[in-house]
């Protein structure tokens, strides 16, 4: 195995390192202020206080009241609680759910389980070739039976940002609740729930430098929700289980840190992203940007390269010290073309060639240049091996 000089992490959409300041904020709650926040003695007050403060911090950033925040065990749980929770609580009202074909598995599989096992009816509205949902399609799909619309805020594979505020307006007019999976947006886009017009919003700590294993579900007051994790009365009876205080503190601290310089950092990352996109498209023939050209996450660059397999590209990059992804991390091991790319009309074999590079806090222009220094060669080499790419004339 080649041991290249340094390690460049370009898979921030998969997960991020925990920020040292976040670790520091969490540490007191492991060995010292370890009380169970439900306990009545004063010692547990330290944990209660940490829980309350964290809830307020998150609520302030989302522009909601602390009571509307439910801390969960991860982004997946937030999505599950939103969808199953609203669907179950609304069974008397209707059994129709509207969603998109580019949702994360946490939303997609949950909707499909509701359809297969519990008789819910699902409408999956299309997306265009940039992965964009048309709000009119949502409006068309709403029926008297519709109880929930779930449209992600920003896509994890191609970075496309959906027109949530418009969809939210339609949903509100028709009296249907709107959930958004904002897991990829948390920390980098505006997540004010009123500006977004949403009733439920999912976040996951590990996408913005908090640990894996903690999430948030915002639930607008008055939204029907049957708890899906039942037991004690924690989180306003919406999510049972002894609270994970260190991670909740960590999530709040991380969201606060991200929020502090959100706009300037987004600008910095967008500039790096655009340099990366321009560099790749300039140096590599038959390379395509996937996702929307402008309405995309500031840190996300995603491509398809005619004729090669994404996993082979990944391994070559890995051997060059660069961590990248072919799309969704949790789908890996599956060899199927991405459901997101095929929904955007990308032909299955081209979809298999996808490469996602997602930038983060520690990345620099040098990192981008280093990638641009090796990627064209990697693609050329793999194409020379490929029966799906024309042989260069000189060798033919």
């Amino acid at each position, binding site marked *: 195995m080649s041991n290249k000089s340094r390690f460049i992490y370009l898979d921030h959409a998969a997960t991020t390192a925990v920020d040292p300041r976040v670790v520091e904020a969490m540490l007191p709650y492991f060995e010292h202020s370890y009380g169970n926040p439900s306990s009545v003695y004063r010692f547990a007050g330290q944990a209660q206080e940490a829980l309350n403060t964290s809830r307020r911090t998150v609520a302030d950033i989302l522009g909601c009241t602390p009571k509307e925040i439910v801390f969960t065990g991860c982004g997946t749980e937030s999505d599950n609680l939103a969808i199953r929770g609203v669907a179950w609580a609304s069974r008397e009202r209707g059994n129709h759910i509207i969603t998109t074909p580019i949702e994360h598995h946490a939303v997609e599989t949950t909707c499909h389980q509701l359809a297969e096992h519990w008789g819910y009816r699902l409408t999956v509205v299309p997306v265009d070739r940039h992965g964009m949902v048309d709000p009119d399609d949502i409006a068309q799909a709403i029926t008297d039976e519709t109880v929930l619309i779930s449209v992600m805020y920003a896509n994890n594979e191609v970075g496309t940002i959906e027109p949530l505020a418009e969809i939210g307006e339609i949903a509100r007019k028709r009296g249907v609740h709107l959930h958004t999976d904002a897991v990829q947006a948390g920390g980098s886009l505006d997540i004010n729930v009123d500006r977004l017009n949403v009733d439920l919003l999912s976040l996951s700590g590990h996408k913005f430098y908090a640990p894996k294993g903690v999430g948030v579900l915002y639930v607008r007051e008055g939204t029907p929700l049957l708890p899906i994790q039942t037991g004690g009365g924690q989180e306003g009876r919406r999510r049972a289980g002894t609270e994970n205080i260190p991670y909740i503190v960590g999530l709040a601290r991380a969201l606060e840190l991200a929020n502090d310089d959100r706009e300037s950092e987004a600008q910095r990352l967008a500039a790096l992203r655009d340099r990366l996109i321009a560099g790749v498209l300039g140096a590599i023939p038959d390379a395509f940007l996937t996702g929307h050209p402008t309405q995309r996450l500031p840190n996300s660059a995603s491509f398809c390269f005619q004729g090669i*397999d994404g*996993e*082979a590209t990944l391994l070559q990059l890995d051997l060059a010290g660069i961590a990248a992804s072919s799309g969704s991390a949790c789908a890996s091991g599956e060899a199927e073309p991405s459901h997101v790319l095929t929904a955007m009309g990308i032909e299955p*074999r081209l979809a298999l060639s996808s490469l996602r590079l997602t930038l983060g806090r520690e990345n620099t222009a040098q990192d981008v240049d280093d990638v641009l220094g090796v990627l064209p060669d990697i693609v050329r080499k793999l194409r020379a*091996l490929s*029966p799906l790419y024309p042989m260069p004339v000189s060798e033919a």
Partner: protein
Amino acid sequence: MYSETLIDHFQNPRNVGVIADPDGYAKIDSPVCGDLMEIYIKVEDDEIADVKYRTFGCAAAIASSSMATEMILGQPLEVAEELTDAKVAEALGGLPEAKVHCSVLAASALHAAIQDYYAKHPQSAKAEA
């Protein structure tokens, strides 16, 4: 995840290319994952005198192709016919469970190319038998 041997074959694949006028040829699709392999053989005195391939697929698919062709180059046809996916995987130092189908692709493609050779050369040893 991958052995050093596999990584070596992935980074320096042997026998890549096409043979303009092959004695046997096959193009095989993996039903599992969309991988695709094209293989060309030249046969002389019932031996694999030359073999070339091109593979679309992951590192395991590419390395399996490389290893499989290396294992049969210069071998008598009947030896080549005994190559199995398990032997390829073993020679690569093992494959992760999810990648075993990649070695199947390489072995299948090779066998198909040999069949193609027999079909096109009915006078050959095997075809006579």
